[in-house]
């Protein structure tokens, strides 16, 4: 009696299942009829604006050589610690840190990371101000940075209101006057602990993270602002800003808006 041992091994290797998986770009390239698809268009727009080498570059212009540049990433790092320690406090609930030494320590980490976050963010903000970092189509980067700062102030403020101690009592009974005077007190009641806690741990962190994410993407999109040009290179007339182009050799954006020679690069 013979036993059927199945197809030879070579047949399995040649099975269609073993074919290499197509990458999305290859698939789109192979199927031009899908080019109008929303998903394909979104992917192409995103990859076109922020190709991987621009999103995660490994080189920077030589002028990026100052300690002031460190404060942006220090701010991001402090924000990460703020969020992680906030999550730890959330796991055990708002009463925990009042009755547990471990909770008090986590609360201390949370408090001091907030202080470091604001310290580094304000230095970052002043540094960018003195660089006039909005130049060269970077105005949206500046605006998202300022709005991130303002929303962060609100996030910290609601944190102080959520402490459930004497400090929270005093801050809420004092702060109500300013907020009520604007009419916002009708919906934003600083003496309502539950409402303030929700704003502090859900709404405002979401907005801060979204704004900071957008800010970082804009930094990657536009690149780091170049130094002020020497006077003899600036008194020129040039065309209106054109679309952003990338330096393929470096993965960095260049800004063709006003080139030194007055011509579009």
């Amino acid at each position, binding site marked *: 009696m013979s036993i059927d041992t199945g197809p030879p091994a070579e047949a399995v290797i040649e099975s269609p299942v073993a074919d290499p998986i197509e990458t999305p770009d290859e698939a789109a390239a192979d199927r031009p009829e899908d080019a109008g698809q929303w998903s394909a268009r979104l992917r192409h727009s995103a990859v076109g604006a922020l190709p991987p080498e621009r999103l995660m570059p490994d080189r920077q212009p030589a002028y990026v050589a100052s300690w002031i540049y460190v404060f942006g990433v220090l701010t991001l790092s402090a924000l990460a610690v703020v969020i992680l320690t906030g999550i730890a406090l959330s796991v055990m609930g708002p009463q925990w840190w009042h009755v547990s030494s471990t909770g*008090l320590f986590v609360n201390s980490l949370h408090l001091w990371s907030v202080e470091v976050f604001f310290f580094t963010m304000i230095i970052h903000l002043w540094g960018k101000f003195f660089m006039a970092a909005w130049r060269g189509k970077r105005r949206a980067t500046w605006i998202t940075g300022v709005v991130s700062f303002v929303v962060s102030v609100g996030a910290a403020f609601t944190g102080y209101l959520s402490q459930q101690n004497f400090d929270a009592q005093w801050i809420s009974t004092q702060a109500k006057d300013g907020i009520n005077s604007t009419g916002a007190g009708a919906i934003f009641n600083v003496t309502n602990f539950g409402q303030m806690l929700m704003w502090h741990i859900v709404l405002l962190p979401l907005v801060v993270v979204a704004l900071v994410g957008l800010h970082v993407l804009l930094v990657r999109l536009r690149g780091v602002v170049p130094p002020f040009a020497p006077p003899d290179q600036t008194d020129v007339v040039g065309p209106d800003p054109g679309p952003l182009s990338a330096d393929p050799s470096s993965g960095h954006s260049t800004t063709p808006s006003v080139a030194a020679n007055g011509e579009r690069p």
Partner: protein
Amino acid sequence: MTPAAPTSPGHRARRFKPDRDVAEWHGAYRPYDLVKEFLIALVVVVIVVTGLAVIFSSPDDTPVTVKSWSAASPVDFAQTAAAELDGSSGTATYGPPYNATTGASQSILGVSPQSFFGVHHPIDTANDYVLAPLRTLPDRPAVQAAVDRYTTAPASQQAAWTAAYEKAVAKADASHGALVVPPGAYGPVGTLVSSLTAMARSGALDGALLSSRQFYGTDYTKPLLFIADGTYLADKAQGQHLSGDQWGMMNETGSFPGQAWLWLYTLWYQVAPINTSANADFQVWALMMGLTLILALLPFIPGLRSIPRWTRVYRLIWRQHYRDLASGPAS
């Protein structure tokens, strides 16, 4: 100035503005490991924050309760209760969003968002802080009789009673713990306030003042405003350098740093004429909202956006770049 360069259709020629435009960077690039930089920064921040937390911990001063307030400062409690009863307390005369007191809303040039949005967290201080809590003591017929007598009296009689009580309680003695008010023509008000004090000292008033009518509650508006109407909370805050004239917004209890980033906000409260204005809060908020808008829109504001170029602090930031430029063409 160089003449306008030929432009392509749809593109308008314009002059280079150093506070808006940048010159193209044709210089060198150097390796820069962003991920490594972030991880090193994260480690540094974790070490610094952990060190600060271990050395300084964080403040957690016990909150003031109606119970602790009435025990620690019975005269202030009694005076506040009388003021809530006759409608002369801070909360009773506050205006929106707590009540509709005429002329209490803040405004600038006749514009008052506080009035526009109106009453959203209604508080009737006489009823919410005094009469309704006392109504929860049905087994105290003398207290209920005092409440009935007060509520059925004409408003002028009520005002006469509370005025007489406020005059008497100012001379009250609480040196032995219990509140002893000199006799006077204050009708049932003495019984009302002494009963409320007893209720507060037992801790029952804290629960009765919670705004929620459900089992679970998180809205402390009523007890907080009641406590803030007295002087006990403010005196305690003054001792912790937290009051407005002490730049308290930037401070924390003890010696901890507070919201130091609010320095500009609290600065305006120290400056004339805002520091004596009845509309100070709205003026400061309007000022801060305007300044924040200016900061956000700085890139669009001629003059202000030139400050970085005029101050030349950028020469310090990019000193190596300008040194390289001075020594020769960029590589």
